[in-house]
């Protein structure tokens, strides 16, 4: 394995560079995935069939808390990657752990939100609107859940194996994924919640 020391650790081998590019292309596919969900949402959002509308069930408080938790987690993982580039393993791991805790907090609020929706009669089967609403939010939530496990595995690996070109590469790619989920959330927040509440 040829290691190029002039580059950051996560880019230092050819294999690492391939993986970063491959992941960017994967994110391109993910954008299409969420774009399809959004397109479907915009098509179906006023087809409530007598069931609850967005304005009736959306509440600003839990949504704002979720937003703040997820945006902060995106910031902390940025700090984590910065610490990784400085070679400070301990700080990096702390920031990664904080990120995951914030992510778990986000998920907790989202589950609470889902339970409330179902109680208010906005279940998966109620109308076309609730079907696509819960599917879009659920797809994002499932991505966050997967991210929590993935992030945990990476923390364990960095802890055990230290900062090698491999673990640095994995951590960096995970941070791309996490930032991407944040970007998707901004669209969900603006175009599903804020637009729905107006």
């Amino acid at each position, binding site marked *: *394995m040829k290691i190029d020391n002039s580059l950051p650790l996560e880019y230092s081998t050819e294999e690492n*560079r*391939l*993986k970063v*590019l*491959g992941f960017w*292309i*994967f994110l*391109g*596919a*993910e954008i*299409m*995935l969420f774009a*399809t*969900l959004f397109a*479907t949402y915009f*098509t*179906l959002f006023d*087809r*409530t*069939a007598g*069931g609850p509308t967005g304005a009736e069930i959306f509440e600003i408080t839990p949504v704002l808390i979720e937003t703040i938790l997820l945006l902060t987690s995106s910031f902390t993982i940025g700090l984590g990657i910065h610490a990784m580039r400085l070679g400070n393993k301990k700080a990096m791991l702390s920031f990664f752990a904080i990120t995951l805790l914030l992510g778990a907090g986000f998920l907790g609020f989202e589950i609470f939100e889902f339970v409330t929706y179902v109680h208010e009669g906005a279940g*998966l*089967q*109620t*109308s*076309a*609107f609730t*079907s*696509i609403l819960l*599917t879009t939010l659920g797809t994002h939530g499932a991505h966050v859940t997967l991210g929590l*496990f*993935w992030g945990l*595995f*990476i923390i*364990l*690996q960095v802890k055990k194996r230290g900062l090698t070109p491999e673990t640095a590469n*994995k951590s960096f790619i995970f941070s791309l994924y996490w930032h991407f989920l944040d970007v998707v959330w901004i669209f969900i927040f603006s175009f599903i919640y804020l637009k729905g509440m107006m």
Partner: protein
Amino acid sequence: MDYFDRFAIPHPSPVIYASMVAIGITVLAIIAGLTYFKKWGYLWREWLTTVDHKRIGIMYLISALLMLFRGGVDAIMLRAQLSVPENKLLDAQHYNEIFSTHGVVMILFMAMPFIIALMNFVVPLQIGARDVAFPRLNALSFWLFFMGAMLFNISFVVGGSPDAGWTSYFPLAGNEFSESVGTNYYMIAIQIAGIGTLMTGINFMTTILRMRAPGMTLMKMPMFTWSSLITNLIIVFAFPVLTVTLAMGTMDRLFGTNFFTTDNGGMDMLWANLFWVWGHPEVYILILPAFGIYSEVISTFARRNLYGYKSMVASMVAISFLSFLVWAHHFFTMGQGALTNSIFSITTMAIAVPTGVKIFNWLLTLWKGKIVITTPMLYSLLFIPLFTLGGVTGVMLGMSAADYQYHNTMFLVAHFHMVIIPGVIFAMLAGLTYYWPKMFGFMLNERIGKWAAWLIAIGTLVAFMPMFFSGLDGQARRMYTYSESTGFGIYNMISFIGALVLAVGFVLIVYNIYYSTRYASRDISSDPWDARSLEWATHTPVPEYNFAILPQVNSTEALWDAKKKGHVLFKGEYEKIHMPNNSGVPFIMGCIFFAWGFSFVFGMWIPLILTTIGIFACMALRSFEKDHGRYISVEEIEETETKLRGAN
């Protein structure tokens, strides 16, 4: 026993029971054969766990050929049923199931793996790379495709086949009108195979963008590699749409959601729209690599550089862009209004422009060329007029006002078969014949190959030309029978005869493989066609590392330069080569996906949860695994190279 009733066939017939017995006997014969010849270890070590792009390509190829015969038998049954008026060979339900599976199998489980087979085998060789960017992901892609295909194929003996057409429009595909689990199979089997294809797209884009030989800039890539790059770009942007659409369809059928239902606010036309937002780019995913193959074959056997390289690339880029903007032309008659229809008519006809550019480029490549008519070249020459027939009828269909006349008639069926068979199938058969010596070390018999090519071309014309006429006369597609007074009988009888001619052509190809395996000379050079690009610069059979020294490139036709202009391809000394290790995980994960899909189809929730955990466990295992690959030493390379050079 109630529990097991769900696995029963809803509309059994002696033919299906006979197939069950045949499948059972085949499986037993394969198991017995492998045990008797002690090949289990060989199969596991050399094939099931392989991450070598060449072997994965060959596995794709075998699967595609198998599926070609499954879909072909479907086709013969359809044509036989329609050959005479009021035929009783198949009933309406069976006819529905067979045209649905014929479409899915031919597009998704035959044409797709066929192009991915050639891409897998050819692209890394053509760009002078040692493997794809992510070899293990490549193996996983294959196993997901394969398991998806197998899951789809068991539907007709376990639980019932999909019967809502290959497009599975809602509400027909909803629970109300498709009661059997058939459409569940459709949703889930295609989902599994589609995820595999998406990963192929990511893998090949990365490979082509980052792993080209030194000196091979983007505009010096061979045309097949260019077409693969564009194709994979379309895959990456189109397949996620399919993923979401199928997931929503699955949820409608199994979880009672209301995406495509006709009450509770659901919108059935949304399925048609989303399906074709994926489906139309899919058409170009199939045809662009075919165009790439034609470009390679035509320039090789006209002994000339490809005419208009830059315009070829530009037209493919234009096609990839336009392919996302035409989806509504599949349902002009479904009430979008004149403005929408006009816009989609214009974008549809605009696609004919870059396609026309490519046709003229091939013609100008042939012009003043020293044409050598080999089997691959014969397919390419037959392709140009036949594909043009399919293409211009496409422009007719693209005019939205006129489409009210053609929509849902045999005219449409004739059109898309005249595009796909000469366009994609001829290219795949040309590619198969062209790359066969590189894959297996001997050439297919030219005489039998040309007979097959002519039979297939004539069969295509005889089978599909009458449909243009019966379609304009008003024969609707997807109808299992018609009365004698319609006068469609003669057209359909001619079509049936054409289908039989096609069948003979395909059987001849199988015979050719058998004949050439037994009798063809193994003493061939590494460049038997006198070709122009890098895949012919390495030995036959190709060593696992492809190139002992990475080639240096300074034009689009590196090997031609090396042969004619004294360009030196391989400079420098041997160095040890890093290669990936084999792994059983992709195969095992594929098997778990199969069980997952099967549980999902029948709504068996506990196995579904267990297999889901299994899938994630495989991913976690991969995350923690330490696998740094292995090195092939310089001594080993020298030994292999000396041996292979002696063979030539």
